[in-house]
């Protein structure tokens, strides 16, 4: 369990909250690059950390993330016209640039200085890889750009999707840390999914339902090692890195791509799940890329033109009890991502952690919560920059390895848990 006040501290990320301040120390995904595909394209509403913002791309390709509402009388600038290096409000024609600076107030005389005093709140928006990143903290303390490997490899080697999840960010993240559910909830995916099946490790994963765990603290977060029996003299290890505040990577399978997630709060009851897949040393094949677009692996099939999953809360996730009986799915819900989402959303928008009954095997989740809480308090009380802001912390990888029984992952394979350009992932 968790005390109520700590549950509130960890789950609330709006302005001025301790966790909100913590999230505002990091570069975080605000949009997929594909959402602003060309100069002067339509602006996009972005709600993130409970702030209502608008992303747009001007006539010269500059990106901006500004307050959604016009400074004049508060209408949504989503209705604005994106033209000639600025966004013009549809109501009375005030115009703003990508920094939120008002550049024109048509009703004022042309030599009036009025508009230079009007500036909307704005944040930087920077394209790295397939993602537009923002930094919503004190702009004087902007950290260096992120260096997650999936965003730095050539675009032919990487793919990112996103989906809406109707739950608080923390219960979504905790699903990413808790790898023991894979042998249950996703068991059929290990056999059927084109981005999972066929790996040597899958049989160990399914063969030992009582993994041992080693939770190892790192500079940026944790490595959670899950150990299962392999052969008589060896163990199969799956190692999941978690980086503060909300980045996880899933241990890979065979030659399938590496993948992982960012869990980004929209508000306290919804989050965006950014999901990436990449190959460190080779291009994704056409088949791999197509499978990701079709919602296989850890991606989701979305309603066309949206980031809302086809299988969602409003249609019971297209629950199929017959497929469940036939053994095609464990829970009756299709697709690995939606299997997770369905269960995490079923907990309610913000799960009541005062009621949960954790076991020692939940130590990874317990430790991650403790690290987040400590970091939020240290930031508030001492102004301490949290772990995971330094881009050096971003260069991690998940791994799956078979090791002799007397060896442990952290001593045996430290280099395999680092992003190393030109070196293949460690995967069984």
């Amino acid at each position, binding site marked *: 369990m968790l005390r109520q006040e700590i549950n509130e501290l960890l789950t609330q990320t709006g302005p001025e909250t301790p966790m909100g301040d913590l999230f505002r120390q990091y570069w975080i995904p605000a949009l997929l690059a594909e959402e602003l595909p060309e100069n002067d394209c339509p602006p996009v509403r972005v709600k993130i950390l409970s702030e209502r913002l608008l992303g747009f791309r001007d006539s010269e390709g500059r990106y901006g993330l500004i307050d959604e509402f016009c400074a004049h009388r508060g209408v949504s600038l989503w209705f604005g016209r994106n033209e000639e290096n600025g966004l013009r409000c549809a109501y009375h024609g005030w115009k703003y640039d990508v920094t939120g600076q008002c550049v024109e107030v048509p009703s004022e005389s042309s030599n009036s200085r009025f508009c230079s005093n009007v500036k909307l709140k704005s944040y930087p928006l920077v394209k790295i890889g397939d993602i537009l990143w923002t930094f919503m903290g004190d702009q004087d303390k902007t950290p260096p750009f992120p260096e997650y490997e999936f965003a730095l490899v050539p675009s032919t080697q990487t793919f990112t999707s996103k989906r809406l999840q109707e739950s608080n960010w923390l219960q979504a993240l905790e699903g990413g840390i808790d790898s023991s559910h894979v042998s249950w909830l996703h068991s059929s995916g290990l056999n059927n999914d084109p981005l999972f099946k066929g790996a040597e490790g899958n049989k160990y994963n399914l063969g030992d339902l009582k993994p041992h765990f080693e939770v190892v603290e790192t500079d940026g977060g944790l490595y959670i090692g899950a150990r299962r029996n392999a052969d008589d003299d060896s163990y199969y290890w799956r190692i999941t890195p978690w980086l503060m505040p909300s980045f996880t990577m899933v241990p890979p399978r065979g030659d399938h791509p590496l993948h992982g997630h960012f869990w980004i709060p929209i508000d306290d009851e919804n989050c965006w799940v950014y999901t990436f897949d990449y190959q460190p040393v080779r291009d994704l094949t056409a088949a791999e890329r197509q499978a990701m677009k079709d919602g296989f692996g850890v991606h989701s099939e979305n309603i066309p033109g949206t980031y809302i999953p086809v299988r*969602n809360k409003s*249609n019971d996730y297209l629950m199929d009890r017959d497929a469940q009986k036939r053994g095609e799915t464990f829970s009756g819900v299709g697709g690995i991502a939606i299997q997770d989402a369905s269960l995490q959303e079923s907990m309610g928008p913000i799960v009541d952690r005062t009621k949960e009954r954790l076991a020692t*095997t939940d130590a990874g989740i317990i430790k991650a919560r403790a690290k987040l809480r400590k970091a939020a308090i240290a930031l508030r009380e001492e102004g301490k920059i949290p772990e995971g802001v330094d881009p050096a912390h971003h260069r991690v990888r998940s791994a799956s390895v078979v090791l002799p029984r007397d060896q442990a992952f952290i001593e045996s394979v430290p280099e395999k848990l680092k992003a190393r350009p030109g070196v293949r992932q460690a995967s069984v």
Partner: protein
Amino acid sequence: MTGPIFPGSSVKAASAAELRFRLDYPLAPSRGVRVVALDSGAELMVRKVAETPWTKAKFFVAETAISTQGMHGGPVEVVFRSLDGAVALLNDELEDVDSIIMVASSDYGSEAAATIGAACAVRGIMTAGLVHGDNTELTVSVLRPCAQVLLVPADGSDLEALLIALRA
């Protein structure tokens, strides 16, 4: 997208407004947690955490593993000392216990750890190992074979967080 909404579907009850209609029930404390310090470095840490009042958790220091009764020569019993000095035996203390948390900062308690691990395995008691202090690699090698979960490294606040999570 339309699809099955089953008769009597409760999926819509997963809303913020509906949450307050969930059945309320008293929170049962866990059946029992034992925290065992395996050496003097661990004892210091455990003593500090034990100062907070806990509902069910009991705290011990492992003294010696007794090997004489072992059918196959291995130890089967460990002498515990509670923090106020009373003597207890491992096998008595495992009655009605869910989880054992072992804390170590060296390889001093390796025999006790192995004995505790074996006794817990037989009884289906969950075991966790907290690796305290700087002597990480050595200490890990002591706890790894006998704990289902290891925290590396761990300090007093980790033990506290674990005990709170377990409602100890």
